[in-house]
């Protein structure tokens, strides 16, 4: 969004071209280069950028990992993965050119010598490929490796840049596991890189539909006057998955749904829905407004958690007619695990716009369908004219995934001689209206980081404020005395009954997805 981040003067040949400016040449160093993220997401995303002509003329990729392998072996592995996971078919001639600039650097993350040789290698690549000393370090390794990596990067002088070049670091979530660890992680990163050099990636923000929330709200004058407590009765945000923990059981069992999804993805979506209009589209203007939303979240006292937050764990059940095991029967999950796979919350944003408007959020695994949606429920029209039992309300739904789009439920008269009113839906589907496939979130985010545009990345204060809000809930759950219960729900249902009660107490129900 902040296209002008590195463009003090415009390039006159760029004027009128619909494609965005190509970022500066650079070397992308991926720590954890043999892992899943690199193979499934990062390299396919970079390949797609290259195929679409969006990468700079000189860009090199250096994979940094422990295992012994040659550049050629690494390229072959990545080619195989890209052919499998890329959104567009791999073309041999493009891959050949792209692969020429992929290199492998073998080292332990804690081996100082490995970083010294990396520095020399990067200088050599700069000379050979014209990457101009620009470096983008991507941390795709486990979070416990961040500290040694950052320490050694600094020791090798790789966090510093010559005049006119830059060094940036992309950090994958989780950004800590609580406020204290997030602060510690931020401190460790700040020892080597400034906040301006740090890009905390949340792939939800790279999704086209998440970005469209700002366009929907601020480019359509009809919504602005209605987007407040006077017209909105409540808001629901749902992130449902049919999947269980799959291969992430080890991580998930330590983390749970609240930390894995609510602290980052759901609160980020809430920020986009609830923020005030920014003064411009620069990254800090947008993030300034987002952080105000998180700061305004009403903090729960420990005694209020049970009434406002419900946690659940899936038991045995069936998804799409296929029986599935209970969470505690999954491989690598402790049989007596108390980890939540479902969370429902009722939140309030204590600011002028949203005071007393309940925000209901739910996130869960092994739910009947996979869908991430935001719904804005408007207050009912006065029923004096038509009928006292006019029960339906206008609902604006923003579908984040899948079947991205927007729908609006309105009341309409049923044809006939009587005055019967029924809700109807006006529906916009991205896939129907726009034939062109959207780029993957990682494509957009990698390109933004290369261009120095941090708009779609989380800032330190956003992350810490979010943890401060989450920590109270976590602490209450883990308290030895009076901890609210963990409720079980059959896989394939919409969560425990207590989640329905959360809304029923307010005279509401979850939207049917």
């Amino acid at each position, binding site marked *: 969004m902040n296209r002008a981040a590195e463009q003090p003067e415009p390039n006159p040949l760029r004027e009128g071209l619909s494609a965005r400016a190509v970022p500066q040449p650079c070397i992308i160093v991926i720590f954890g280069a043999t892992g899943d993220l690199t193979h499934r997401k990062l390299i396919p995303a970079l390949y797609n950028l290259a195929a679409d002509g969006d990468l700079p003329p000189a860009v090199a990729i250096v994979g940094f990992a422990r295992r012994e392998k040659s550049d050629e072996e690494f390229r072959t592995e990545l080619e195989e993965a890209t052919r499998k996971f890329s959104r567009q078919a791999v073309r041999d001639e493009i891959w050949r050119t792209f692969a020429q600039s992929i290199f492998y650097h073998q080292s332990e993350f804690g081996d100082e010598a490995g970083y010294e040789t990396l520095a020399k290698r990067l200088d050599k690549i700069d000379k050979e490929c014209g990457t101009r000393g620009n470096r983008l370090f991507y941390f795709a390794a486990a979070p416990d490796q961040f500290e040694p990596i950052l320490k050694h990067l600094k020791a090798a002088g790789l966090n510093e840049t010559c005049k006119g070049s830059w060094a940036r670091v992309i950090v994958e979530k989780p950004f800590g596991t609580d406020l204290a660890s997030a602060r510690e992680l931020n401190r460790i990163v700040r020892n080597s890189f400034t906040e301006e050099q740090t890009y905390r990636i949340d792939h939800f923000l790279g999704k086209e539909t998440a970005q469209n929330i700002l366009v929907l709200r601020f480019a359509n004058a009809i919504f602005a006057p209605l987007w407040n407590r006077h017209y909105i009765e409540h808001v629901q945000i749902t992130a449902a998955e049919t999947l269980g923990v799959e291969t992430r059981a080890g991580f998930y069992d330590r983390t749970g749904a609240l930390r894995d999804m609510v602290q980052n993805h759901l609160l980020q979506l809430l920020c986009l829905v609830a923020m005030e209009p920014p003064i411009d589209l620069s990254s800090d203007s947008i993030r300034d407004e987002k952080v105000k939303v998180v700061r305004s979240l009403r903090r729960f006292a420990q005694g209020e958690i049970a009434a406002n937050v419900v946690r659940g764990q899936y038991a045995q059940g069936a998804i799409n007619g296929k029986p599935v095991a209970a969470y505690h029967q999954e491989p690598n999950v402790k049989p007596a695990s108390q980890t939540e796979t479902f969370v429902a919350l009722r939140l309030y944003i204590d600011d002028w716009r949203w005071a007393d408007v309940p925000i209901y959020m739910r996130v869960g695994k092994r739910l009947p369908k996979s869908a991430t949606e935001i719904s804005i429920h408007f207050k009912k029209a006065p029923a004096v004219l038509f009928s006292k039992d006019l029960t339906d309300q206008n609902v604006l739904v923003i579908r984040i995934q899948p079947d991205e789009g927007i729908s609006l439920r309105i009341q309409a008269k049923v044809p006939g001689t009587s005055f019967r009113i029924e809700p109807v839906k006006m529906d916009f589907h991205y896939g129907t209206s726009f034939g062109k*496939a959207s780029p993957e979130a990682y494509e957009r985010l990698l390109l933004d980081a290369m261009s120095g545009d941090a708009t779609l990345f989380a800032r330190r204060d956003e992350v810490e404020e979010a943890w401060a809000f989450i920590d109270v809930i976590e602490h209450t759950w883990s308290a030895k005395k009076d901890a609210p219960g963990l409720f079980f729900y059959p896989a394939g249902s919409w969560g425990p009954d207590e989640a329905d009660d959360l809304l029923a107490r307010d005279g509401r129900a979850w939207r049917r997805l």
Partner: protein
Amino acid sequence: MAAIAENYSLGLQVELGKIDSELKKLWAQSEGAMTRASLVNLAVYSEAPGSLEKNTQLIAKIAENHACRAIVIGADCKTKEDRVEAWISAHCHISRTGSKQICSEQISFLLEGPCTDLLPSIVFSHLDSDLPFYLWWQGEFREPMDRQLWAWVDRVIYDSQTWKDFHAQMRLVESAQMEAKQRIVLCDLNWTRLDRVRFALAQFFDHPASYHRFAKIKNARIEFAPGFRSTAMLFAGWLAAQLNWRVEKTIGGGVLQFLNLSGRKIDIELRERAGEPIGEIILNSPEVEFVVARAKCGDLLEVSRGKPGEKRMPQLMPAGSNDPVSLMSEELMRGGPHHVYLRAVNCVRDLL
């Protein structure tokens, strides 16, 4: 569902006054299995024989990426007797998610004889309300331009490469634009043809450290295919307009001479060679040569920079395609006014 155009037929022939009701029937028959989509009214006008069938094929492909209400008009003004025939059809494809059929509807008209004057009324009666109206005019414009029609057009799409007299045609288009109080955006597919090569050249100069090279450009060479001199000329006009060069003179052998702001001469050589519309562009400054050339595999551009004669690492970029479906798809993806195009045209108008 006979009107669903699976084999690019014109579909179901209908009476002129019953087009709307027949369209309604068509969608009622689909019983919710298909979703009608439309983002734009796209009217296509051609006087070429057989154009209705040919344009139906093009629309079927264009509609896969650009849902529209298509109004395809084939006209034969030379016939003495009036005849108007109409057909309706739908172009359907499976959505990206694979879950439903997305359909664009097409209304086709065959106009013969003096009734071609009825064009505006026919078009106006069948526009999908509140959607922008794009008119793709194939071939040459004729005088007089119908004021009523042009006042409604949001974007007029044409291909100046096919024009015999650029000056006269451009005058007609510009006067229509003036009468429409500048509402019409002029979209020249000959300009769209240059989109990818302009992008490929522009990206060399995205880094502020490269800006100083603009002032050092000595000369350039543009290779173009037979019939595409105007395309090459537009490219030269674009470079000149954006870099503040003005035309000095034409020298023999296809060389145009420009003067930059400091009065230094810059020669642009236009060289004809069989191949793609624009085969290669070389921009020379004293230390660096910038090259954008068609790669051997055809639909990619090979882009490189370096000292003349030194070994380079070329980058491959999408080249786009010269077929009308690709050009139209590119054009429909764009928005906003084409000021840069008009500046380029004005820079070389007298040479076109």
